[in-house]
């Protein structure tokens, strides 16, 4: 087991943190507007503060607020949050072999902090698992640094949004910086024809299936894009790395 101080000092901690840094302003703006939206929809300040601090999942938060205010039963709210978060279950299946050398508590803590961008950046840097202790430590340090910057940008600005909900008008649309940050990361990942195909297929499926409840369009879009890419990956045009 690696001590926190060792993780902090590992050179890859910094690499992970720096990889997330350019996207942090977008994440922060998105967090800010999520905080504003929760209070403006009618959650009390204490409820919104608690939610910003511990739930750490923008999609689930925004889906749950109207249900909370309507007095929906708890199991409905929790089931909704779970469905909106289903893509993370897929991510955990993918990352499992990278984390299983750690004790349970550390695995669960790592899971809690691993949101979309951290998952994407981690797999981009480490496409393959390793059995060497040094490489495993580097991976853990990278993951921690990346998570820390992501968590801090999101949570600190969500709290600020809750505090400033009556000052920052939602109509300015500052939250649009979040999707723009993800768009840039998306472009940096799209390095082959097959990956462009995955972007188009997933984007199209997510739009066409938008009417599905509980953000299930996201899960469906992942499935469509993955199956399509698997069906086409042996075609010669798909192997060219530059479009």
């Amino acid at each position, binding site marked *: 087991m690696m001590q926190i101080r060792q993780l902090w000092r590992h050179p890859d901690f910094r690499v992970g943190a720096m990889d997330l840094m350019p996207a942090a302003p977008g994440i922060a703006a998105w967090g800010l507007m999520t905080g504003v939206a929760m209070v403006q929809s*009618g959650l009390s300040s204490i409820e919104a503060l608690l939610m910003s601090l511990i739930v750490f999942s923008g999609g689930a938060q925004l889906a749950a607020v109207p249900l909370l205010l309507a007095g929906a039963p708890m199991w409905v709210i929790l089931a909704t949050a779970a469905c909106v978060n289903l*893509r993370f279950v897929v991510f955990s299946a993918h990352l499992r072999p990278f984390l299983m050398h750690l004790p349970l508590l550390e695995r669960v803590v790592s899971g809690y902090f691993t949101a979309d961008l951290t998952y994407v950046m981690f797999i981009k840097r480490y496409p393959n698992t390793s059995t060497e202790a040094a490489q495993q430590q580097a991976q853990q340090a990278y993951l921690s640094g990346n998570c820390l910057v992501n968590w801090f940008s999101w949570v600190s600005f969500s709290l600020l949004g809750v505090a400033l909900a*009556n000052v920052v008008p939602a109509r300015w649309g500052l939250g649009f910086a979040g999707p723009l940050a993800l768009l840039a990361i998306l472009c940096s990942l799209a390095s082959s024809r097959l990956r462009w195909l995955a972007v188009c297929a997933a984007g199209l499926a997510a739009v066409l299936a938008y009417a599905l409840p509980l953000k299930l369009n996201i899960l469906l879009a992942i499935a469509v894009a993955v199956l399509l890419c698997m069906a086409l990956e042996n075609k010669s045009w798909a192997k060219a790395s530059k479009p």
Partner: protein
Amino acid sequence: MNDSTDAWTLLTIACMAGITVLTRSFFYISSKPWQLPGWAQRGLQYAPIAALAAVVVPELLMTQGQLIDSWQDARIYAVASGLAWFAWRRGSGHAVLGTILAGMAVYLPLHIGLGW
């Protein structure tokens, strides 16, 4: 804005944090040795980019379930400007931050100034 806080809501929020933990670490919880079948491992290579596209494309192109249906929508020009910046600065350290700034520099004046 509402200043009444109720304990049941706070408990629900605490349980939602539990849902975040459970979904994000779902496959880490059991330590029984098992491996994903080979086809699933191959397919998961495409999952990160697909997930990101599925999250972001509706945010960029839709309003409350409807595709953008007017040229007077600031997002069209903001996305074009962000993409142009990315294409120009691809591979440099400022590509991602620049995309956000170039997009917002177009978005905010159109959205706030013209109401697009």
